[in-house]
């Protein structure tokens, strides 16, 4: 546990340094840059790219969470039960769609820019959240739901006070999956002119500047690993509190 905490602090410090003080890394990246070429990406600040990247992912994931949870509630009510087999097929088949392909297919429809990236992230992000939320809502302990009916809670009260809180940890796992996929897909989003950290990597690939690739890759990788870790910790905390 202790080594985990130390490692985490080191990675956070490294990430902050890479984002806020990229110049410190000139000696490290220099061997990878072409002779006489720039070592550190200068066309945009790492901070603004990071914020834009995280902003896109946050926006798409938040929208996906709201819509996916609402749909999950819908298909787990008696009125929406007819849609359950269909929704299962859509989630199963939808998740086999490669995220890159979803992004690529959004371009003909929406043009270039942040738009297709947002839509691709949103659509793709729906699936794991919906799947996990449905699983969570349909596998609640029977004794608890019966007790909730027994003490006279209305349907809405049961949903808000019992079902949704109990479904939270599993739903959160879906949100984590969706955010991790989103961070990766947003990186590729820079190929359709969305402003994300992928821009640095792509610039490196196009100009054969491995230093850029390394710089962008490290920042994106660290963001993903640290955000994943933070969400896992949050899940563990919530599951622990519910005695799961």
């Amino acid at each position, binding site marked *: 546990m202790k080594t985990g905490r130390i490692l985490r602090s080191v990675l956070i410090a490294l990430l902050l340094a890479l984002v806020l003080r990229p110049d410190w890394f000139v000696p490290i990246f220099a061997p990878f840059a072409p002779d006489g070429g720039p070592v550190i990406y200068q066309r945009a600040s790492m901070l603004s790219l990071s914020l834009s990247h995280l902003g896109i992912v946050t926006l798409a994931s938040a929208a996906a969470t709201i819509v996916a949870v609402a749909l999950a509630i819908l298909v787990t009510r008696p009125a929406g039960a*007819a849609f359950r087999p269909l929704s299962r097929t859509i989630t199963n088949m939808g998740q086999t769609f490669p995220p*890159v392909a979803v992004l690529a297919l959004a371009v003909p429809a929406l043009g270039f820019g942040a738009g297709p990236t947002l839509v691709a992230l949103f659509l793709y992000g729906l699936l794991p959240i919906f799947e996990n939320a449905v699983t969570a809502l349909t596998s609640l302990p029977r004794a608890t739901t019966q007790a909730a009916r027994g003490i006279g809670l209305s349907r809405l009260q049961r949903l808000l006070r019992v079902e949704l809180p109990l479904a939270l940890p599993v739903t959160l796992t879906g949100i984590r999956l969706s955010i991790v996929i989103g961070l990766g897909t947003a990186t590729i989003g820079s190929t359709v002119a969305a402003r994300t950290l992928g821009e640095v990597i792509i610039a490196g690939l196009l100009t054969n500047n491995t230093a850029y690739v*390394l710089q962008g890759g490290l920042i994106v990788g660290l963001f993903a690993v640290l955000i994943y870790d933070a969400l896992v910790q949050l899940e563990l905390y919530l599951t622990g509190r519910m005695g799961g």
Partner: protein
Amino acid sequence: MIGIRTHISPPGLLFAILGLASLLVPFMTLAANRIVAGEGISVLRIAGPTITAPGVAAVTIGLAMGLIAKWTRLRLLGAVFGLAGLLWLLSRSAPILLSQAGEYARVSPAAGFWCLVVIFMLLMADALAALKPGPLMRGILLFAILVALVLVLRSGMLSDLSVLQEFSSRRDAFFSEFLRHLGLAFGSLAAAAVIGFPLGILCHHRVALRGATLPVLSFLQTIPSLAMFGLMIPILGWLGSTVPGAQAIGIAGIGFAPAFLALLLYSLLPVVGNTVAGLASTPPAALEAARGMGMTSSQRLLRVELPLGLPIILTGLRIVLVQNIGLAVIAGLIGGGGFGTFVFQGLNQTATDLILLGALPTVVLALTAAILMDILVELTRRTPEETV
């Protein structure tokens, strides 16, 4: 009245409403050349009424056939009918639209067409889900659909569409990138299996190794694909230039090698994780009995743990295969080849149909792989579940 209402399938109703709405959205796009954005054309204006009327009628009837919940076969037939109507509209209108436009003009299906395709596919899926076909039947259906797709594409009835014009000017490149894509996806799967199965079996027996391996692999899995592919470049570049003979076998900073390695790293978690989970799924009492009756540890592994864990282990391979088919697209960015080459060339040239030429086959490939692997997993799950 109530009797009829309860017989209407709610998804069928939703499909009908969305389908009719999609008819109002532009059905085809006509562009002056392959680069510029096109102009959307409504379904009623793509051709004369002798062509549009039967097509639109087929679509509408197909949607209507999907309405009755109980008549599952009719709903399935409705989906086929509707798709046939769409094919009719597409194949008949494309030459007419092109003949009215300039020399470099391109015609492609637009949002209305794609929405209707998706709706009829979902109708088909919904009807099929109710029919619950067995694994063999699903295999036959998949095969029939793929054959129909190949026949339609080879017949030339769609050759006026822009995507297929992109295809015909790159026929050779298409098939070589196709093979490259399969090579990347299946090659990395095979390599992951060769490394992952033994590693998974070792992890199953050694708790300490498991505790160290699985978290590392799951962190690898979280690294965004572009970063992973990118980070392979300096690593393999360094390997290629320092290890003697490495370059001779194709290890270099860009190209096939870094893409392959990145895919391999992504594949390890599902293979190892599911192997561990599969082996651990053996009922403890069965394992105790196996030990008690004098099976050696390799006999236990081969006769009890592996056969019982096989469905879970194969599920891991399904995840890897589908994931790698998708991720192999990124290889196009680092010169690794595959369908990604078309996708990123298309994005560079803002040629949307070139993007589609890369993206559509990837999607079909991923779906086919997923369905085939699902069938395989189900076949290995044939022994009844433990009830006690």
